[in-house]
């Protein structure tokens, strides 16, 4: 739970998860409701809302958790349609693609990336002062984006082939 709380605090996301309903399975965390908690056995593979996993002491959030954070006052940057597509292809965000900002804008801050419809596409880290007027430079380094679902599918297919 500490890893999740630390992660949330990096985004100024003011949300609390009921510790009694968070279960850890190997290195992965899941959020249950009371009903699922009453039904679950220890040998489950997936349950409730997947929150993320620890890898080498780093917490890697699920896209469900990021979507939940996006419903709070967490740091957010909204991007235009072209930047949306580039971002889910794994690319960084340029200053000129940013259409709205919410929360701090200092170098090193973490931020969620949203499209114009308000959907959370992933998150990144601000690489330069966003008050800077230079539009043509990378503003947010992509850390995770929903294109990951496709990358996972291709990895699975590759594994199935061999």
């Amino acid at each position, binding site marked *: 739970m500490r890893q999740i709380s630390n992660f949330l605090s990096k985004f100024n996301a003011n949300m609390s998860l009921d510790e009694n309903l968070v279960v850890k399975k190997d290195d992965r965390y899941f959020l249950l409701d009371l009903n699922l908690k009453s039904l679950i056995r220890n040998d489950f593979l997936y349950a409730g*809302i997947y929150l993320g996993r620890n890898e080498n002491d780093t917490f890697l959030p699920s896209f469900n958790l990021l979507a939940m954070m996006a419903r709070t006052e967490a740091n957010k940057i909204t991007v235009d349609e072209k930047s949306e597509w580039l971002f889910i292809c794994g690319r960084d965000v340029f200053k000129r693609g940013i259409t709205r900002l919410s929360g701090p804008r200092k170098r090193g801050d973490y931020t969620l990336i949203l499209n114009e419809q308000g959907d959370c596409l992933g998150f990144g880290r601000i690489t330069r002062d966003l008050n800077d007027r230079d539009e043509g430079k990378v503003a947010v380094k992509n850390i995770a984006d929903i294109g990951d679902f496709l990358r996972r*599918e291709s990895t699975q297919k590759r594994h199935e082939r061999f």
Partner: protein
Amino acid sequence: MSSKDFFVNRYRQLGWKYTSVELNQAIRINSMSTERIDVKRRLESRGIQLEKIPFLEAGFWITKSDFSVGATTEYLLGLYSLQEAAAQIPATLFSELKDKIVLDASAAPGGKTVQLADIMHNTGAIIALDVEKRRLSALSNHLERCHVSNTIAYHLDARQVRRLNLKFDRILLDMPCSGNFATDKEWFNRRTIEDVLNNAKLQREIMIEAKKTLKEDGEIVYATCSLEPEEDELNIDWAIKNLGLQTQNIDCYGEKGLTDVFGKKLDASIQNCRRIWPQETQGFFVCKLKKRTNLR
């Protein structure tokens, strides 16, 4: 006689003339994440043309798209799933699903699990099983992508479902089956009647165990994407005679189940089942079962 001639001859005996089919790609909009009309509008704004599938509430044919509909932002956000049209039918056949405990006995890769969660508005609980661990990764990704929150997945053979010590209100038996030629161009070269009989046996074993975990007033939906009557009408006839199950009338796309299979007369209530010969959709078979009233 070639394998193809053998099976095509069987279909003719069952009253259907073989024709090859080209299937339209279909999607199902997940209404738990957003309004259906909004997703449709968003896809159309990207140049994807959709046509409502007349016999499905949330299903659409893709009639034109210049790129893969499995790689749009909306897909990655879980606003819709790629799901063949006939495969969208079984989950819609249950009566009230909200707040129920539902078993999805052969769940991976998860298309129908997500659909059940959607219909249930993420209430109640779905217990999703699959015997192949590799396929369960696909299920997990599907659940995460589509924001499903009411499911517990186990790596478990459906024949061992009693280990969970649960009783279910609804059971989806989307059976492991022989498939059909409409979704597999090499089907006739790959399949033999022995495969069909082996699958039919496995399906009976799953039905036996599933029925033991069904609540008294519970419902089973049995589905295969096989055209072979051993996996369809003959199995249901066997379940009626040996498991104390009875078919329920369903109102969905497809023809009545066959009651005369290669000269063998089956229980008349098999007509309640639906057989879908490949045409607009792949080949499919579906039926709804409950425990026989006088045996409860």
